């Protein structure tokens, strides 16, 4: 743990974080303790994506590389990046915030849409690839686009994704990680 009073968080900062994050105050302390290695202040502490991906909560997640990519700055996690990530995944976060970040995470080719390519990657990650045949994959993809693609352009924009995810009551429950 760090040394000196400069390492402990001031009350005003805590309150500031309270306003900016959907994350209970007490957990910020725990995350802070996890972050710091001895000799480093929490402000300067940085973690690489690999380190964060090896955390127990993310280790087995099939989308961990996308999660780390979306929440990090230049592949490094500062303390505030981790707070941001924890806030989005906390149980108190609002559904539309989760939906927007889910959209970023699922957009593998980062063109602003979830297109067929992204859908194929998602489905393959969700299953073991040898469990599903090619035509079943295509059929599933077409079903998803039938249901969610309202303007028929073959891709899901953020609005269409939001539209279909707000109808799903399970999404908020399953898009939670406890840090």
């Amino acid at each position: 743990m760090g040394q000196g009073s400069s390492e402990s968080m001031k009350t005003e900062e805590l309150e500031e974080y309270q306003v900016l994050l959907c994350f209970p105050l007490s957990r910020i302390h725990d995350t802070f303790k996890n972050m710091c290695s001895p000799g480093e202040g929490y402000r300067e502490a940085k973690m690489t994506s690999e380190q964060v991906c090896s955390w127990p909560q993310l280790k087995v997640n099939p989308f961990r590389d996308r999660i780390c990519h979306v929440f990090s700055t230049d592949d490094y996690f500062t303390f505030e990046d981790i707070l941001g990530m924890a806030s989005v995944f906390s149980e108190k976060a609002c559904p539309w915030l989760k939906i927007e970040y889910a959209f970023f995470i699922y957009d593998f080719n980062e063109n602003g849409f979830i297109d067929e390519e992204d859908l194929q990657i998602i489905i393959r990650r969700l299953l073991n690839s040898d469990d599903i045949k090619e035509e079943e994959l295509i059929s599933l993809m077409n079903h998803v686009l039938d249901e969610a693609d309202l303007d028929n352009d073959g891709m899901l924009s953020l609005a269409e994704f939001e539209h279909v995810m707000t109808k799903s009551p399970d999404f908020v429950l399953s898009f939670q990680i406890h840090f």
Partner: protein
Amino acid sequence: MEPSAAGTNGFSWGSRGTPSLLELPSNQTLRFRGNRALTWGAALEGLESATGTVPQDQPTKDLEEEERPLKELPLCLAEKHRLRHQQEQVKGQLRGRGLWHTGKGRALRRFQSRMRDMLSQAEVWRGALRNIEGHFGTGIQSYFNFLRFLVLMNFVAALLVAGFVVVPNIVFEELRLNWMGDSQESAVNASCLHYNPNPQGLVSYFTYIMDLLSGKGFMELTYLFYGYYKNSVVDFVGFSYNIPLAYLLTTLFYLFFCLLWVVRRSVQRLRHSLVTEDGSLGTYSEKIFAGWDFGLTQRQVVELRKKSICYELKLELEEEALKQHQAAQTTRQRASLYAVRGLVNALVLVLLGAAFYCIYRATEYSQSLLGQDDSPVKGFYFLELLVAYLPSIVITAANLIFPMIFGVIVGLEKYPLSMEIKLTLLRSVFLRLASLAVLLISLWSQITCNGDLQSWGCETCGYNVHIHPCWETSVGQEMYKLLVFDWVTLLLVTLLVEFPRKMLVTQFPSCSLFRLWGQQEFLVPSNVLDLVYGQTVCWTGVLFCPLLPVLNTLKYIAIFYLKKLTLFTNCRPSDRTFRASSANFFFLLVLLLGLMLACVPALYSIFVLPPSKVCGPFRGELNMWSAVSIAVSKLPDITRDFLYFIGSLGFAVPLFLLLSILMFYLMALASSCSQMVMDLKSQLQLVSDA
């Protein structure tokens, strides 16, 4: 890629600005969704307006509302700090009253969030639930969540009942205060007053244990049952505590309070799917995008989850193929399918009828045999206990065997699998609640001599005094026995079936029989139905056995630990994941149904049946409700007239009409909204094709 640079790189926020989406009915229902709901893309509008210069002359209220969306903006913390700094600058220019307002608002919000934080930290069993979620997923966690909710509700109810009914009684007895008897004993026939539950003569130790288990004997003279409470008003330093009134009002309030709590919880669960658009749930999108449980942490569970998602998706594709196949069937094939379905439903009804008849006969037999003084089972302790528990045994046996039969025959009806599961579940629910109803009806027919109050047994006292000198206690005893037996069955099944099964299957993996049997799966629906059944029994019995909520709380706490133990020791994660949320609402609905069922005997006993003349707090009254009417008539004039008005038809009928009109209006609104959605969807397609 930084989400904060959203406005400048390839994310096409512009496409979300299709005005049609903002015209969707979900936006119009904004005002029904509470003041935290935002319109589509409102967070982004907040971003766009916030990155520009904030106008200097904004009223304070707008600033306060803008602060809230800061939490909900999809930006990195550095950006949020910058925005907040901007807002602080603007706020710094406020003077006087405006500053005070924002300061107060901020302090209030801080206080609220701290309270919420503390409350969530104080949640019971939080760590255990987190652990279960990590190992088995949110589906099974929802069962334990439901169980925790029931424990909490029972605990609060137990405090209520104990505080207003039991504790005053105990205190007044201890202090030997002045009891003022209100009963008129003169007009009562002496034969109605024969009641002595104390065992006569030499009593062996065994009798006490039998009495404890069946609620008879010395148990009838404890606070557990209705019969022990006194019909009196206690004078205590200037105010008088009316025990019968307290008893009645506490029970009614308890039922009403549970109703409010369950309804509130259902509405919270329903709020996610408040907007009913064209009814299509988007099953594929949901399974793919919301299918992964991000909270899972164990590798084996993750593998199983992948398998179960694969299974579900393949199932959906199969059902689709089946539907297409069925649509292509000829009329003759379809007719034969419908005939088979009709036959199966008839078979289900016959089975249910047989079960109900068995329960009815068992209750009749048990009550009559135990009520006779010269019955052949007196003196044979185990036989007596068996006869006393006969209704519970028959009900439990029916509830174990028949759902299995239902699960088998539903395969003949050739429904898609999801429909099969729902249908079996519905039938099991009906069986459980209806068997309880049949037990109550058979008790009623005994107490009121089949409704004929002029027949031989009932003409002296208005109820069957030979078998049930204190009939409320008898009903309470039946509910008590159901509770005890339910708990004992659970314990025995866990100890004698689940643990040995796990041991046998793991010790002898080569034996093909054991491999076929396999390890236990934790089936959420049947477990939840057990809980709902137990809670319904508690609600039914609370009027006759006031300490039942206390016993129920203890029972549910024990069940929590027992089920957690068996989950981690004996169960393997199932192949099919259980959908937590949609089923949650279904279970709350069944709980509400159970509550409705439980209210019927309570209200009937209060308003229609004559209370026992020899025991209980309403002895000597015409019916239980008269305690309330007497108390109301003693109130000051204005209050009394107001209460009479509320209870009269002149108030009830217009209220009913008003509520019906409101309901029809909302239904019309919903159907016009879904029509508008379909129109807008086709409009979207036209716009994009053009």
